[in-house]
């Protein structure tokens, strides 16, 4: 292509009026001709001005996202925001578990199934609300952090993710609740057993075998020093329906009630008594109407025993 040919084509070129082969030939000439490049630059400004004559229509915002998405590599999951969400959920879960634990201590150890279910339900609802709030915050944080990126729509926590998280946390909470309850029961039991053991092995304790018409072995271990005693019964038959056993402390003007008890499985009973045994001479066990026994004995004692100080 001659320089003159090129000069002729430049005008048509800037208004996209060339066939593809003409355009290619012109480009080749332009590579080696500074004068033609300058002419092109001059006329290209005119065509740009013609472009400005077209109605101004901005592209939709979604197009920006599409273009940027094609240009930017997908951001690698915005780690900061993810860790923030995980940490927040962790802290909340911990707080919930702690709260559930304390709640279980406040509740009576024998609270019934309905109460437990209600408590669990409340915990689930509260947790759900908290998770929703955190999820919203998470969304805000990720949207803010990706505001410049635009290409990636705001991360939405999937319902599955929320459901799995909620179930795990609730299960953990329930587990902790159970363990705490078991712990409380075990430690109470352990406490009682160590008291029993201490009393049984104490040198100041005395064991008295109770005798009478009832079958089985019934012994009373008393520790005069600490004002405590333990009634240990083996093979003691259950009293008739509606009745209980009642232990009386004898020595004062009137018999005083020391304990009301029933025979456990296999007739085994361990009952702790608290009394200043030095003030009494003897003990007696009668059958009384249940469940609270009587203010004064109403039947003949089935078992009796003399206390250590009783001989005095």
């Amino acid at each position, binding site marked *: 292509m001659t320089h003159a040919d090129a000069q002729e084509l430049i*005008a048509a070129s800037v208004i996209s009026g060339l*066939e593809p082969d003409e355009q290619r030939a012109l480009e080749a000439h332009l590579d080696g001709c500074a004068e033609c490049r300058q002419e092109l630059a001059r006329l290209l400004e005119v065509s740009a*001005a013609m472009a400005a004559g077209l109605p101004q229509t901005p*592209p939709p915002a979604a*197009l920006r996202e599409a*273009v940027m998405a*094609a240009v930017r590599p997908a951001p690698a999951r915005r780690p900061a925001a993810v860790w923030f969400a995980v940490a927040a959920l962790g802290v909340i879960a911990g707080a919930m578990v702690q709260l559930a634990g304390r709640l279980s201590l406040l509740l009576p150890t024998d609270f019934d199934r309905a109460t437990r279910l209600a408590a669990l339900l409340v915990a689930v609802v509260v947790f759900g609300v908290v998770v929703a709030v955190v999820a919203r915050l998470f969304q805000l944080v990720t949207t803010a952090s990706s505001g410049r990126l635009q290409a990636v729509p705001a991360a939405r926590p999937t319902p599955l993710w929320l459901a799995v998280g909620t179930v795990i946390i609730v299960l953990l909470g329930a587990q902790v609740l159970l363990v705490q309850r078991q712990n409380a029961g075990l430690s109470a039991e352990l406490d009682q057993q160590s008291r029993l053991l201490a009393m049984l092995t104490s040198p100041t304790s005395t064991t008295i075998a109770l005798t009478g018409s009832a079958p089985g072995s019934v012994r009373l271990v008393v520790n005069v020093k600490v004002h405590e005693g333990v009634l240990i019964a083996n093979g003691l038959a259950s009293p008739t329906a509606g009745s209980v056993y009642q232990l009386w402390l004898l020595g004062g003007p009137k018999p005083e009630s020391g304990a009301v008890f029933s025979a456990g499985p296999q007739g085994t009973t361990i009952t702790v008594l608290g009394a200043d045994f030095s003030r009494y001479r003897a003990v007696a066990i009668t059958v009384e109407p249940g469940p609270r026994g009587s203010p004064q004995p109403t039947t003949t004692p089935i078992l009796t025993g003399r206390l250590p100080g009783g001989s005095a």
Partner: protein
Amino acid sequence: MAGASTHGDDDGALLERIAQSDADAFEVLYDRYSGAVHSVTRGMLRDPQAAQEVTQDVFLGIWRGAHAFDPQRGSPRAWILSLAHHKSVDVLRRVRYTVVPLSETIVDDSDVVAETLRKVEGVRVQTALSSLTIEQRTALVLAYYGGYTQREIAQKTGTPLGTIKTRMRDGLLRLRAVLEPDLQEIGP
């Protein structure tokens, strides 16, 4: 975050950075020119969906072809708008050739020019166009706003190709003189 200088960078600096795959620079350039580019694609193509596709294509072309930008051949703005125009015209021609041959669509020169001129809204450009001879205006309007090649226009108007070339060049120079205050200054 983009460097503090990004928004203050001139177009040439932005294109240099885009040539090195700087997405921040590209984003600034997009925000600067997406309106002007889309106005061209949308003005040239009736189909909004097609216009969006071409606008996207233009910017991806800039992203991939920024290294090919040569400041000696025009300002960044003129280069970007000519990309938008070229690509729009390509689509226009593809559709036109596959649907109706040019010779069957044009009944009368003046009708086509009038029809095509309806695309032009800018008062300054309209005024500038009205300062041309009717022959110059026909050639420029059919080419730029109508998307016809110089050969098609010559054939259509029954005018020698050389005459069309001259009308285009004279028309552009005349427009340049009228629009001078609006045009960006070009280097030597």
